[in-house]
């Protein structure tokens, strides 16, 4: 609860649209923390559109049809957690190591490639998860490498 200048009280939970705008600026980890605050926040953060925003935040708007595909393959939240976040983290470390060209244009181009790669890996993940591991809901094994500590 915040007290505004004109003396009225401002309850964030009463103004969900403001909450959403704020949450859109958070990163994945913080969204996870936010989900633990209360039931309302939990339901909002689990909304896939928030994660969609997070996935494509730094990239030029994704091509049409991405949403249907991603939703069919498991949703943006899963995409972010299983593919995009590890890919970005890993590549950030790699790029630092290789002294990469950090100009803005290059950044955007690389982001695009990273997202494309993540989408491909996400599709492979879906295929393995649903069709190859007997559909038991076990995590796909070919993406294990994304979860391992890298000796970078």
């Amino acid at each position, binding site marked *: 609860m915040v007290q505004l200048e004109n003396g009225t009280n401002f309850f964030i939970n009463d103004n969900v649209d403001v909450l959403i705008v704020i949450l859109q600026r958070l990163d994945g980890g913080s969204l996870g923390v936010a989900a633990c605050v209360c039931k309302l926040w939990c339901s909002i953060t689990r909304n896939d559109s928030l994660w969609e925003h997070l996935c494509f935040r730094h990239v030029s708007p994704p091509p049409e049809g991405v949403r249907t595909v991603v939703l069919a393959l498991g949703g943006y939240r899963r995409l972010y957690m299983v593919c995009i976040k590890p890919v970005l983290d890993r590549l950030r470390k790699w790029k630092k190591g290789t002294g990469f060209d950090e100009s803005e244009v290059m950044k955007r181009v690389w982001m695009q490639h990273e997202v494309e*790669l993540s*989408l491909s890996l996400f599709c492979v993940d879906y295929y393995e998860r649903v069709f190859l591991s007997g559909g038991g809901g076990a995590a796909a094994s070919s993406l294990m490498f994304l979860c391992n*500590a890298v000796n970078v």
Partner: protein
Amino acid sequence: MKRDRDREREKKSFNGGVSNGGFSGKGKIWEEDEEETPDAGMDELLAVLGYKVKSSDMADVAQKLEQLEMAMGTTMEDGITHLSTDTVHKNPSDMAGWVQSMLSSISTNFDMCNQENELVLSGCGSSSSIIDFSRNEQNHRTTTISDDDLRAIPGGAVFNSDSNKRQRSSSSFSTSMLTDSSAARPVVLVDSQETGVRLVHTLMACAEAVQQENLTLADQLVRHIGILAVSQSGAMRKVATYFAEALARRIYKIYPQDSIESSYTDVLQMHFYETCPYLKFAHFTANQAILEAFTGCNKVHVIDFSLKQGMQWPALMQALALRPGGPPAFRLTGIGPPQPDNTDALQQVGWKLAQLAETIGVEFEFRGFVANSLADLDATILDIRPSETEAVAINSVFELHRLLSRPGAIEKVLNSIKQINPKIVTLVEQEANHNAGVFIDRFNEALHYYSTMFDSLESSGSSSSASPTGILPQPPVNNQDLVMSEVYLGRQICNVVACEGSDRVERHETLNQWRVRMNSSGFDPVHLGSNAFKQASMLLALFAGGDGYRVEENDGCLMLGWHTRPLIATSAWKLSPDSGTGAGEVEM
């Protein structure tokens, strides 16, 4: 039995090393050996101990032992003289790592320390027994001797009649025996670098023996490889074990059964797919080439020469689904071997891919063909539609090299490909020449190739204690995956080394050899673009141990390797405009 006598002799020399007073005696035993074998001939007894007794080989091995001894002599300055001198090893497990690190650091400084090394050796040579070498450290430092004497101890002079030289070289052997003496006691063998060298030499000696049809010698050497391999660790041990098994199969003519193979190989290849990036690299680069070839086409048809589990196609379908302008109609023809239990594995894979296609909104059609060999198929069977309406891509990952085992097969298949008139042919093959006519050449090539492969597996599988980065809990890398991948490679090794004729299907050839073949058959290369390169580099950066993998561009083709050695190569081809035979549509 001859071998028992050898063992006893070995034991004698070992025991001589154990008791302090027996050192000089031990030196004499070695001298006796050398007296019995006056010249560098084919001494099978020494061969059993791991030394191929041709003077050229002896020179090499003795030189390495010499270097090792010198290196160990210099380390005395760092306070670990007891390593090279005492027989009582207090902490053997520490020694191994310690010596390894010292040796690796010393080998780089070797030239600088050369002067000092010579002093050390001379001290050894001038004394009649090792015991002086061990006890009087001061001797090393103060004794001076000219360089000439020491240069007279090349390996080739081992059997020289000059007794002075022999004593020196025998003492160098004795010192190495010293380190080996620990093997006779319940202690870890310290000098794994030396045994590593010996292991490689024994492997090559065994292959040489097989080449010369000297199967008794080969048999003895193979057993010795087994003993030596145990003293190694990690990749070297596994490689040596697999090669020893393959050599043993060749010697005893116990060939692996082919019929059990196909479904088991699929499972093994899945594990291989999961533990290391080679297959993923292959799939992603080939997919990129196919994707680019299919731009602007509304109906596409991919023919996969070895469908296996169809792991390559989800990523392609996803890329097609998201391409600007929407996905084309996608048709997949999968070719596979007959299954031993008559299940229709191809149809099952096709069904899974169809479900995926429906999920992501791609129009999909699948057809499976069972064939023992690609040469059994031709363009008419494969139901090719007219090329104005449908663009065809042919994809072969680790499959075309199998055709080289039967004469005429590869030409027939390449002709069929030309009749199909594809827009692009993607070819992924191992980058090695395992198809040489001479066995020993093949063996050496394979040894180097698979050693590098196993090295890369070691590093990618070693990160087993992982901290999960996602919210979803993930178990650490499965060690079983690693083992299965090694079995997968082991089968290839077995095939390259043990089989012959039409059984030997792992006839890998290098990219240049394939280039010559494709060019002369009427194909032109298609350059894989920078997108493929970037994607491949990113993919590799994601792998643990990714700093060891290298993507190289080779005249339009991409090669993935481990450090400096390329291991697989992806290339893309199209029909040259003027290729004569059978180009064009296939009717009916």
